[in-house]
């Protein structure tokens, strides 16, 4: 019985990879929409927010896993929030030290990483029940999936909304930018388009298997 359970237990690689595709926080679980919509107006902002969130996810996951046996259930949420907020504060200082322009562009959304529900979600659903290394891998995978999704949105919104990518002009002076895409409403439209595309590819194997099963 134990051997079977061990055989079925996901490997550390699975814990990392699942956040990229099967449990992608933006395209599958649709969590953390506030920064996803607000900070994906340029590829640079999206990438920076994704990396900052990944850092917090990985380190807070490891820290919460490390203290899980010492934290009574009654005070677990308060403890997790204190740990997450501490890493977010450290990230905010690091971004200010790296680039004031980037800090200016991300604005209040760096501090709001604290209330990003996917971070508390991973803490509660995974890190509080698993070991330090796999919790860190789970955080890294979820963060990588979040970064990938934000980069997808940021790239489309910047190219079509501003005619640039990472600030580099792509089209000539005749290009008329689709300003709507860099506005908040453009975030919703771009997210919807990516969700349709993502789900099309995600459900394709099942759709292909259906006619064969019917035969």
């Amino acid at each position, binding site marked *: 019985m134990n051997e079977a359970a061990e055989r079925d237990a996901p490997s550390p690689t699975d814990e990392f990879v699942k956040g990229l595709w099967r449990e992608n926080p933006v395209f599958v679980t649709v969590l953390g929409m506030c920064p996803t919509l607000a900070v994906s107006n340029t590829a640079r902002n999206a990438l920076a927010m994704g990396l900052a969130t990944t850092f917090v996810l990985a380190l807070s996951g490891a820290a919460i896993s490390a203290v899980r046996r*010492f934290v009574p259930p009654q005070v677990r949420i308060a403890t997790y929030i*204190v740990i997450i907020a*501490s*890493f977010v504060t*450290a990230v905010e200082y690091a971004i*200010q030290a790296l*680039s*004031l322009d980037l800090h200016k562009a991300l604005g*209040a959304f760096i501090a709001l990483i604290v209330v990003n529900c996917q971070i508390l979600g991973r803490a509660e659903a995974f890190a509080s029940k698993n070991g330090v290394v796999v919790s860190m891998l789970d955080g890294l995978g979820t963060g990588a999936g979040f970064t990938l999704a934000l980069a997808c949105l940021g790239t489309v919104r910047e190219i079509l909304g501003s005619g640039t990518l990472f600030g580099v002009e792509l089209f000539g002076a005749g290009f008329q930018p689709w*300003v709507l895409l860099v506005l908040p409403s453009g975030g919703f439209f771009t997210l919807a388009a990516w969700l349709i595309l993502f789900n099309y590819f995600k459900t394709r194997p099942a759709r292909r298997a259906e006619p064969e099963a019917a035969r």
Partner: protein
Amino acid sequence: MTAPVAPPPASPTSAWSMYRALVGTGAVCGLLIVTAYQITLPRIERNKAEALERAILQVLPGAATSRTFAWVDGQRFEPLAGPARGLPVVHAGFDAAGALVGVAIEGVGMGYQDSIRLLFGYAPATEKVIGLQVLESKETPGLGDKILVDPNFLANFAQLDVAMAPSGDALANPVRAVKHGEKREEWEVDGITGATISSRAGADIVTKSATVWLPRIRADLAAFSAGGDR
């Protein structure tokens, strides 16, 4: 039929274990924050100083160096050697020969979303604003935030009239934003379509700051001559 058996009561968590978890986590996290702050502080301060220096030289075209002056005792300017410690300050820009190009003045006011903090250069010789840069703004991306980068809007502040009234305590013509394409006077700002409130806020901030600082600068202009060495 047997009666359902109630689950055994969970062992109560002692107050001490909760206290230990919260205080222990808080102490370690506090240490983490202080460490991150101490490590990054010198770099953050250097970044801020460099950003301000770049902005000063940008709003004072032709300036090669700058020096910060504090308004002391409500009557005179003095070069500032250390931190401002709450004193109101301006930044004088000097050309390669050491002559005064102008004075960079900070101003803050309400925009569409939040406060806008900007820096503008004032040339006492011509009584004009000669450059402007937005230091902080949270205006709407794609609309209000055009005041940061729109070349036509920023060109308004290359030669903007801020001459003082004969009374010496107000501008002869307050700076005001007008609709795009309707600028007629030297003290008017050609606004940005789609960023009307932000354009108007920029003009109002310049008027407000100029009304406070220009009489002071004109009253003690000698303080800035020769790089501030009286």
